[in-house]
Each structure stands twice: as structure tokens, then as C-alpha cells.
């Protein structure tokens, strides 16, 4: 396992290197000059040249790239053009909000998907199965930019239970987490149902029931555990999507996360901040996927990592 982990970590390096390189090139290729955006139109050309020199944007792009790459191992991601704050600090300020929202929405998704998926599988072809399928399709069909305001309208404006927007671990978290978690819950519900149905058809489940194990125990203790392996893999993969795809939810609920920061950085052509955000998202995705693989091995002892 240790060798496997080391290998995975080493394989992370070219992935992150590739992501950093592609983003560096793309953001520099985009039209729009950060100096112009920062200084506005009242600035005189000499002032713009001065700033360009100071931000080292006057250097050849390869030299800028080399400086950026050498800074990464030291934890130096540069200074944000727009706020003049170190990029690492900017991102660190947003990370708790992003992790909180991502973790809560995934938890919401799991807590909804597991019972509903199990129910649908165990009551296949019955009303509960159709209802769960209908609910999943409905949830997948409603985009976040519509679901969010609808939830706000119901729970905040009509019922007055929850705040419309804001940031916090309590009540302000409920609606953004549900908005972000609903689509994921729908997907997972269908996945749990499908994988569990497949397991339920296998002989070991029939044998367990034949030996007198109650159906519920056979499902919960044996079939579900095996059915969860692909579900956990899907969860890990969707974590990256949650990190980057939460922009709409963050915008609707004024949630100060990394998704919104990335969009603002792109708008301002804040090269160091864009690169920093993408680097952190890439690293997080790789780390979560690694954790997912380890968790899968725990769930299914047949999985061996060499």
C-alpha cells in the first residue's frame, strides 16, 4: 500500500504540472491586459509601463512561467494583481467556505441517496421505486440557478425559516448545501439503486438469505457494502466538480467560496490568482481521488493496490 501511495503521489506531479502549464498559457492568451484593468483609463502610459515592469509582465512569457514554477515548491504563488494580497492568503481565506459547502452538500447527497437508492432497489417496480426515480429525474432536470431561488422563495421568503444569503456554518449553510447537493443526490440515488440491484442478483446474497439471514441484513451488511464501491468512486470524482461547479450556488447565496474568487480573478485578468485557484482545485481533486481509492480498498478487501 505504501508503495502504491508513493506511486500515486509521484504520478500527481505530471498531472499538476500539466494543469498549471495549460492554465498559465490559456490565461496569458486571453485578450485583456491586467495593467489596463488595474490602472483604468486615467493612467498615463509611463505609469502603465512602470506597473507592467513591477508586475514582471514585461518579461518574456517563458521567464514568467519559470518564475511561477519555481515559486510553487516554496509555497509562493505570487501576489494578487487586484487586491495586492498574497495569493495563498486570498485562497486560504476562501478555502474554509468552499470545503464547508462541498462537504455539507456531499453529506446531504449521501444521506438522501443511500436510503432512497436502497428503497428503490429493494422495492423494484413498486411505487417507491417509481417515486424515487421521478424525484431523481426532477432533481436532475432543475438547474441550480432555478432551484436556489425557488428554495429561497419557499424557505426564506414564505416560511421565514432560513436566511436568503450569507455565510456561516449554521442556518446560512442549509439552502446552499441543499441546492448544490440535490443534483448529486439524484445521480447517486440512481447509482445506488443500479449497483445494489446488481449485487442483489448475485448468488452470495441468495445464499445468505437461504442460510436464514434476514433480507434486510443481507442487503445492509453484504450487498450494500459491495454496491458502494462504484458509488464512492463517483463521489470522489464529483468532488472536483463540486469545487469548480459551485460558482452558481455561491453567486446565488453570496457564499464567499473559491469558485466565485476564480471567476472574479478571470474577469480582472489576475494571472497569479487564477493560477493559484486552479492549482489548489487540481491538488484537492487529486487528493480526494486518492482518498477515494483508499476508501474503496477498505470497503472491498478484494481490491489490492500494487
Amino acid at each position, binding site marked *: 500500500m505504501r508503495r502504491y501511495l508513493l506511486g500515486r503521489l509521484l504520478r500527481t506531479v505530471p498531472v499538476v504540472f500539466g494543469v498549471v502549464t495549460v492554465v498559465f498559457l490559456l490565461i496569458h492568451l*486571453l*485578450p*485583456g*491586459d491586467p495593467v*489596463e*484593468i*488595474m*490602472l*483604468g*483609463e*486615467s*493612467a*498615463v*502610459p509611463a*505609469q502603465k509601463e*512602470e*506597473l507592467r515592469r*513591477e508586475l514582471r509582465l514585461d518579461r518574456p512569457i517563458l521567464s514568467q512561467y519559470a518564475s511561477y514554477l519555481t515559486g510553487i515548491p516554496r509555497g509562493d504563488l505570487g501576489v494578487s494583481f*487586484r*487586491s*495586492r*494580497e498574497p495569493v495563498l492568503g*486570498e485562497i486560504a481565506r476562501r478555502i474554509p467556505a468552499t470545503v464547508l459547502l462541498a462537504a455539507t452538500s456531499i453529506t446531504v447527497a449521501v444521506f438522501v441517496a443511500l*436510503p*432512497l437508492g436502497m*428503497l428503490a432497489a*429493494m*422495492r423494484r417496480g413498486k411505487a*417507491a421505486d417509481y417515486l424515487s426515480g421521478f424525484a431523481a429525474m426532477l432533481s436532475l432536470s432543475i438547474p441550480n440557478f432555478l432551484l*436556489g*431561488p425557488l428554495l*429561497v*422563495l419557499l*424557505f*426564506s*421568503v414564505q*416560511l*421565514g*425559516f*432560513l436566511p*436568503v*444569503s*450569507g*455565510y456561516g456554518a*449554521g*442556518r446560512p449553510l*442549509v439552502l446552499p448545501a441543499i441546492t448544490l447537493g440535490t443534483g448529486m443526490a439524484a445521480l447517486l440515488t440512481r447509482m445506488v439503486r443500479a449497483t445494489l440491484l446488481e449485487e442483489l442478483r448475485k448468488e452470495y446474497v441468495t445464499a445468505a438469505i437461504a442460510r436464514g439471514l434476514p*433480507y*434486510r441484513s443481507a442487503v445492509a451488511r453484504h450487498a450494500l457494502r459491495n454496491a458502494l464501491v462504484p458509488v464512492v468512486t463517483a463521489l470522489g470524482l464529483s468532488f472536483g466538480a463540486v469545487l469548480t461547479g459551485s460558482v452558481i450556488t455561491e*453567486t*446565488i*447565496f*453570496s457564499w*464567499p467560496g473559491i469558485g*466565485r*474568487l476564480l471567476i472574479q480573478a*478571470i*474577469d*480582472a*485578468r489576475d494571472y497569479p490568482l487564477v493560477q493559484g485557484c486552479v492549482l489548489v482545485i487540481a491538488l484537492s481533486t487529486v487528493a480526494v481521488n486518492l482518498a477515494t481509492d483508499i476508501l474503496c480498498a477498505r470497503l472491498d478487501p478484494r481490491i489490492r493496490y500494487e
Partner: protein
Amino acid sequence: MVRISRLSIFFPVFLAFLALAACAQKLPIDEGRMVIALPGAPVNVDPRVATDAYGEQILQMTHASLVGRDASGELVPDLAERWETPDPLTYIFHLRPTAMDGQVPRQAGMPRVLEPRPGLRFHDGRPLTSADVRYTFTWILDSANRSPHRGLYRHIAAIETPDARTLVFRLSEPFAPFLSTMVRGIVPAGSPARGYAPPVGAGPYRIDDLSPDGEAVLSAYDGYYGGPPAIRAVTVKFVPDSNVRFLELKMGSVNFTLNGVDPDLLPAAERDGRLVVEEGPGGNVTYLGFNLLDRALSDPRVRRAIALAIDRETIVRTIWKGRADLVSSILPLGSWAHDPDLPAVPFDPARARRLLDEAGFPDPDGKGPLPRLRLTYKTSQNEVRRRVATVIQEQLRQVGIAVEIQSLEWGSFFSDIKKGNFQIYSLTWVGIADPDIFHHAFHSRSAPPDGANRGGYSNVEVDRLTEAARSEPSREKRREMYRQVQRILSRDLPVFPLWAGRNLLVRDRRLAGFLLTPDESYASIRAMRIVRDSSTPPTGSRR
């Protein structure tokens, strides 16, 4: 088997959890707190470097300037109680009494109990003197500090402080708009620029907390020279989604937003008994820019034909729901230099076709599908702007001009405009404070990056007038020069001014005293109060 009933209790339990999580909510206004919603978060709240509108709006509440603006945009005393201009190169400002001006008796006729004189002080108690003002502008002018405002003050040759209350600005050349550049928040001497930690100010509110992308928490500053504000607590929430801003207003968790509700949602706000919608003239002028280096558009007849083919009234009525005023100049309607007698361009498609014929663009196939000419129209991805572009595309099609709309992400769009990579574009001039904008936007030497003459307009008379006006100390003479400039521009149409969106305030009806100004100033928040009587007097034209 798991029975449905067991799992189906999940949802009621979940709803019950929500209900338990909810507690009796008291609205902020019931606690004496005003909550303002801004459509975005400020990048910076330091008057020396802030350039975005949201930062400027917060600074209007927290930082006092040498001079301010009244409701009509006229310059009025703020920290400086008066000023004089002995010659076009010298500006002398006299500060209000500062907290260092000694001690005075508390009350006439009473025993001489001495206490510090109420004067100019920063939020942290430090007295505000001429040295702080000099520091603020010297900091901006220091190239090491990379202030985006440095270019604005490039005419300053020296700043002298003969005493704690007097400042002398010496200019390198006459620059009539100089006084308007003095609307800039003052910070204490020695204040470093610290990103999200703004320096203290001397305005009516102090910043207690500022979270990026979250909110700014302000509290009343009792030491403000103009007297403590009546509303003791103000929260500025950054709510980017316009629907959510409206829902926050409906719920009462936000009770004030200026230009924060889409025109489509205003009828719903007007129907809400708790809210009041106010409307006033706006100062932001939307215009069509033409590339005068383009073969077709270099002909003024083609530009006029385009202007004549656009039915602005219909666009204002349908897209803006009537909440915009047609304009003939890029200068805001309330500006002292605005020419009210400028001829308006009417909607006249027949004349537009005739002008196109004269300009050498006849209709090639009568009522057939072939256009007289093809043009590209660049705009941002803003939804309203895209809708406007679509309507203009259709209106120009009616006179035989085929328009291709290119809706670009803001950075790419603005980059193209500044490089002259366009035929027609649409933009809005925001916050025009001085008619010197004509020099910036139309002088032949103001092509980017030296200015905003993006279309390559060149007119010797406009050059002469805008140069003379910026060094002319007499306002009357300047006014006449700028009126001549506006008449020439109205004839040449290097840009076609379309409309100025009206300023729209939606507020809780218990909030009173806000003065709706064309420049969207938040300065009058210090004069606001919360009234019990819901029938508050309107401050603009109430609807």
C-alpha cells in the same frame, strides 16, 4: 423488509429540523440597523487605490474628502471649509477647525470646564490636519505605491502645509478640473496600504468589519464633524444575484438598494406594502461608439443614418420599462456644462435610407434580402445589453444594414474596444464628474492608451476648445466652450448618445432622508433616519 413508512419519515424529520433551526427572526430595521445590498464586493476599500464602484460607494460613508458634492453634483465644502484660487496654478484649502485647535469652554456662561474641541478627527481619535491630506496625495503620487489614481494628479507640482489647517497645491500647468479631483478620501499620515484592512477615515461611519465577498459592518462615528449619524449601524451586504437581492428586500433582511433591482422586478417591489420605489435622473450615459477609421463609418452620413434608424423610445419603453431618459450628449443632464438646446436625433428610417443612398450604399435588390452594408456590433455579455443589441440589430435591418452581434466576455470586449478592433460597440460612461471628459474622449491625441478616443475621431476645433477649456478658470467661459464642443459632436456623431438610465432606489418605507443624486452617491446616508410613521416623504419622484 424495510417499510416505506420508516424511510418516509426522513422528510418530515428534515423539515422539522429546518423548523427547529429557524428561530424567531427580528428584521434588521426593527433593531435600528440599515442593510444595504450592493451587487458586488469591493476589490479594495482604500481611497488611495480603490477604483471599483462598490469600493467608492462604501468610501462615501467612511472617508471624508477635502471637497464633496451636493445633490446637483456641485462641489461643496467637506473637510475644507473654504478654498481659493489666487492664480490658475495655485489652490489653497482651509480645513475646518481641527481637534488640535486648543480647548474651548463647554458652554457660555458656565464655569470654564475645558474639554477637547470637537474638530476634525479620524475614527481612531487622531486629529486630522493638513499633514494627513498632504500624506494622502503624496502617497498616491509616489510611483512605488502603484496607485491607479496617480495619473489623475499628475498636474500637482508641490503640496505645501503652512499650518495645520492650510494646504497649498501648486500645479505644473493650469488644470480647471483640478478641484473635482479633490473628492478623494483622506487617510492618516503613515497609513500603509494593507489590502483588505482599510485605513481609518474621518467620515460619518467607521468600518468595524470587512469580509471579502461577504459584508462590511459599519457603525456610526460620534466624532464626525457634521454630527453623529442617526442610524447607528449599517451593514453592506454583497449580493451578486439580482433575484436574490430582490428576495432579500421582500424578506426584510435587506432594506435598501440603489440600482440593485432589475426593472422587470420593480412592479413587484411597488406592490409590496413595506417597500418604496423611488426614481431620479441618472448620470450614466449609454452610447454607441463608431470606428471612424472604418471605410463605411468614416462617412458622417452613415453614422447619422444609423442614429436615425434606431428607435430609442421603443427600446427605453420595452427593455428599460420607461426608466431611462433619452440624451443627446454624453454629459449627464444635470451637469453645469450640459447644453439643453442640442438637437435630438429623431427616429426616421426613411431619412436613414436616403442618407445611405447618398453615402454610396444603395439597396442592391430593393425589397430583397441583400443588405446595403454589413457591420459588426460588439457588446459585453450583460443580459440587458445583449437584448438592446438584438433590438438595434433588427431596427438597422429595416434600413438595410446587416448587423452581426458579438457578445464578448468583459475583459476581451474592453480589450478589443481599446485596441480599435471594432466597427460599432455599446458602452456606458459612468460617473462623469467634469466636462473635461470631452478632452479625454474626443481630443485627437486622446487615443488609447492616452485617453478614450477609441473611434479615432479628429476635429481641430474640438481639440482647440477642449484644450482651452481645461485651462480656463472661469466656469462661464468653460460652459460656453463645452457647449460648442457638444454642438460639433452632435453634428459629427463620433458616438451616438442613447439614454441615461434613471437611478432606482428600493427601500424600506421606514427609512427616510436619503437624497437620490445622479451620481448614485451614498453620502447622504449620514442624514438618514428610521421613522415610525410609514408615510415617509419621498426624496425623489416616488412611484
